[in-house]
């Protein structure tokens, strides 16, 4: 169990990007009328969140501090 948790936590930025940022982008994009006709909107939102998290994971931080 501890090993499993450690593995998950090692990729915490990716999970945060995928779930948190992805969910927020998905909700915001659905509110924007201009994006109503865009196909696979949810997929694009969660993929964007995943990529943001992946970049943060590789860099080791979210912002340019």
């Amino acid at each position, binding site marked *: 169990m501890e090993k499993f948790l450690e593995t998950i936590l090692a990729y915490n930025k990716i999970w*945060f990007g995928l779930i*948190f940022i992805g*969910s*927020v982008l998905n*909700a915001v994009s659905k509110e924007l009328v201009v994006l109503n006709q865009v196909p696979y909107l949810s997929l694009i939102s969660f993929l964007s969140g995943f990529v943001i998290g992946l970049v943060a994971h590789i860099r080791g*931080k*979210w*912002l*340019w*501090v």
Partner: protein
Amino acid sequence: MGVDIKDAVSEEFSFEKEKAVAKKYAQRFQWEMILIGIGQACVWLSLWPLVMFGIIPLWLGFVVACFCACMAYLPSHEAQHGNYSRGDPKKRWIDVLVGHITLITVMFPYEILRVTHMKHHAYTNHDDKDPDFLTSNAKSVKEVILLSLDGTSTDYEKYKEIYSSDAAFQKAFEKGVKVFLTYRIILMSLVFLFPLQTLLLWWLPAKIGVVYTTLFFSYYPHIGTEIGRYKNTRFWQHWMPRYINHSMQLHFVHHLHPNIGHYDEPRAIEELKPFLIARGVPGAEEIPDRITYNPLIKI
């Protein structure tokens, strides 16, 4: 390291006399701080049903949540120092309860903050041992804001390693990690179900609260200070009235006598002023004779 407490000043301003003065202000039960801690957490929790059922708009919920988040840390800070129980084991539960509940708004584990804060007091301004070193010695406000938003203002893993031989630190840290994981699981579940509400009622207000806290508790009081009991925190003033930054202009007295109740600090400083000047506390010469009801504005 530090100042030789016994030899640095005359008998008139001895450490024993200073301590006796401070002790007078470290007795009172701080009911108002408990009210603020539990109160802001209850207000913050009530925002969820109020927003969900459309009783108040989300933007208003966001504004109130930001205010709650800015008020969240100080009651926990008093708990970290045991300033509710004041050494009475039967009242220790108040420290723990208030310490945990008030921090829900900013999603921080009480135990981790408690042990790292104790190390901050023990090793203030030591670059390798002070968990607040990055922010208290930052070069600018912008740097503090970016570090806080990034979540890298304190490298908790690093300090877990530095204090690896401190069993009490490790035990508290492990407890804190469990609370942190619980927060993460709740946050991720909530954002999946209520994304905008979670963003604007919890995550963003928590970030704003952490920036506010780091700026006023960690950065401003320690600018340009050194290592040593009477040198590591300063008296400062600027355009902002002290009532909107938790009176952190007076944070130096907290570093000298952490058991003085937060709202008793102005009166304590008025009486301790000659001691502070004699000891060379940074900025002590500029401390007004009257601090109670003084907003301490300097333009």
